[in-house]
């Protein structure tokens, strides 16, 4: 797990505290009960704060899984 992934895991852990650390990398909005629209908005706000970026909220489907957000970050932060 690289540094970016670790920081993203910490963001998930703050917003979805019921997720065990080992579950986070596989998490999707469909599989996590408390991952609703408010959780998405909060998660993206925490990610923006953590990585100092401004996320384009178009195409929200990109942000409905840990992997989707990680992929977005890998492109946005470079």
């Amino acid at each position, binding site marked *: 797990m690289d540094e970016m992934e670790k920081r993203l895991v910490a*963001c998930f852990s*703050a917003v979805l505290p019921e997720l065990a650390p080992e579950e986070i990398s596989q998490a999707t909005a469909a599989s996590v009960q408390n991952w609703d629209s408010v959780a998405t*908005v*909060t998660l993206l*706000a925490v990610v923006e*704060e*953590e990585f100092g970026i*401004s996320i384009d909220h178009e195409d929200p489907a990109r942000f409905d899984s840990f992997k989707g957000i990680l992929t977005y970050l890998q492109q946005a932060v470079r």
Partner: protein
Amino acid sequence: MKLVEALDIIKGVEKRSAEAFTCFLATGLNPLHLTTFLAAELGLLFTDRKIEIQHGLYGDLLGNVRRLAKADAESGVVVIEWADLDARLGIRSSARWNPAVCADILATVQTHASQIQRTIEETSQRMPLIVCFPTLPLPPISFVPGWQASSLEIGLDAIMQSVRSQVSQCDQVRVLSSQRLDMVSPLRERFDVESELVTGFPYRLAHASALGSLLAQLTRKPVPKKGLITDLDDTLWRGILGEVGIEGISWDLEHRSQMHGFYQRLLGALAAEGVLLGIASKNERSLVESAFGRKDLALSPTIFFPLEASWGPKSEAVARILKVWNVGPDSVVFIDDSALELAEVRASYPDVECIQFPTKNNVAIYDLALRLRDLFGKSAILEEDSIRAQSIRRSHADANAYEATKVMPTTFLEGVEAEVNFNFNKTPLDPRALDLVNKTNQFNLNAKRYTEASWQNYFHNPASFLLVASYTDKYGPLGKIAVVAGRQSGRKLSIDTWVMSCRAFSRRIEYRCLEELFVKFGIDEIELDYVRTDRNSPLREFLGEVLGEAPSSGCAISRQLLETRSKIVREPQEMTNG
């Protein structure tokens, strides 16, 4: 505070097993992260409570304020933004703009603002309310360039100023200071256009955090510090008195020492508000007294009592001042320009707030004044505030008189023409009563503290009673100095709260309170919800004296027992109201 930190705090708060502090947040915006920041900040303030934030419906500010009026909450927070008063003042509306529409916007805002004002005024009768007026900039509706104030902007400001002024007159309403908000959250960095469009939450995180912090602080009534001990040289004035002499010290523009005069003016204001002021200075006392004879001082030197000018350690001077004031170290601020002196005092009194006076740094002195205002700030000045310093001087004189004459305490008390006044009125609740309950540590039955709402709720019980005792003698009034709150059940009283100001010790007022309760309610027994605390030894000693043994939880005093123990009471003149 960062959002992730707020979430982390909330996680900890949710694990608390205590009763929840419930706050209703009434706003027309999507409260989203504001809720998170507010809950986290409240969690930090109310360390022994869970936090529950209730909401209304999105886009319905007036409806939400009405919901708040009926909510089962301990406190209400009303956050108003321009778009709540007229949707055309927000960016989510599709209504057209043109110069002619401005008058209609003003009329709509006036109507909605008046409705909100009335609801706030009504709701504040039953719970404390925090009100925040618009914090976001107006959109560019008006035809004038942005650097010119438009008639729309001026008109809207006038409406808000009027409402702000009206609601701030209500006893239980506290209005968020827009000046303080401006200092911690610049206007340009508040509005989040993207977030407003996507979620209906218009604040940037930093602004939401600042707002959450200030709203939370307003939710809890301030517990101001009681006393300030100041150094003199390079603090109250510029220069070392012993070196430059009386005419060499300064506090004016001419000598570039004006900020010492500014500090003096602040101390003068604090004294007038009831703050105790003392001096701890390494100086010759006679020289200090001569310096205080200078006519151009920006304060009256009589506000300082005691004046400790000597060459001994400052911690010893602080000890003597604390003894005269009879207050705990955690209620006191010590200011000195010397880091060494501060460290020496801090080593003896870690609870005293020690602050270095930043001599020759004018900006830092200004900031110190702001900090002191926060430390000593209170929502209202009560009668007791104006007589506190005088009564301490009198008590000190009384003690000296007693030492000089060596008469028995009871004999001495008989000669002071003591008059105790008992007031049992529950409506309206005397704000001084809650102040005393939440500030008093030493003569305190159990250290139980109340929020304004929980205090009010307590007296909704018809069996409850409130006793507020005031005291005066030939040396002058002490004001309201004791509070007893409890419930009657048949021929028994249960006392849940009993506090007495340390200024009223050694006057047998505690005996008079008990006697008055037996007489007023015709009861046989008083049960006390006594809890031993680290600081309530005066109360413990009194109960031990009455009970003839160390008090325990739920201990009781019978009428007969009190009559046996309180023979020392020498019929002070007394009046009962309510």
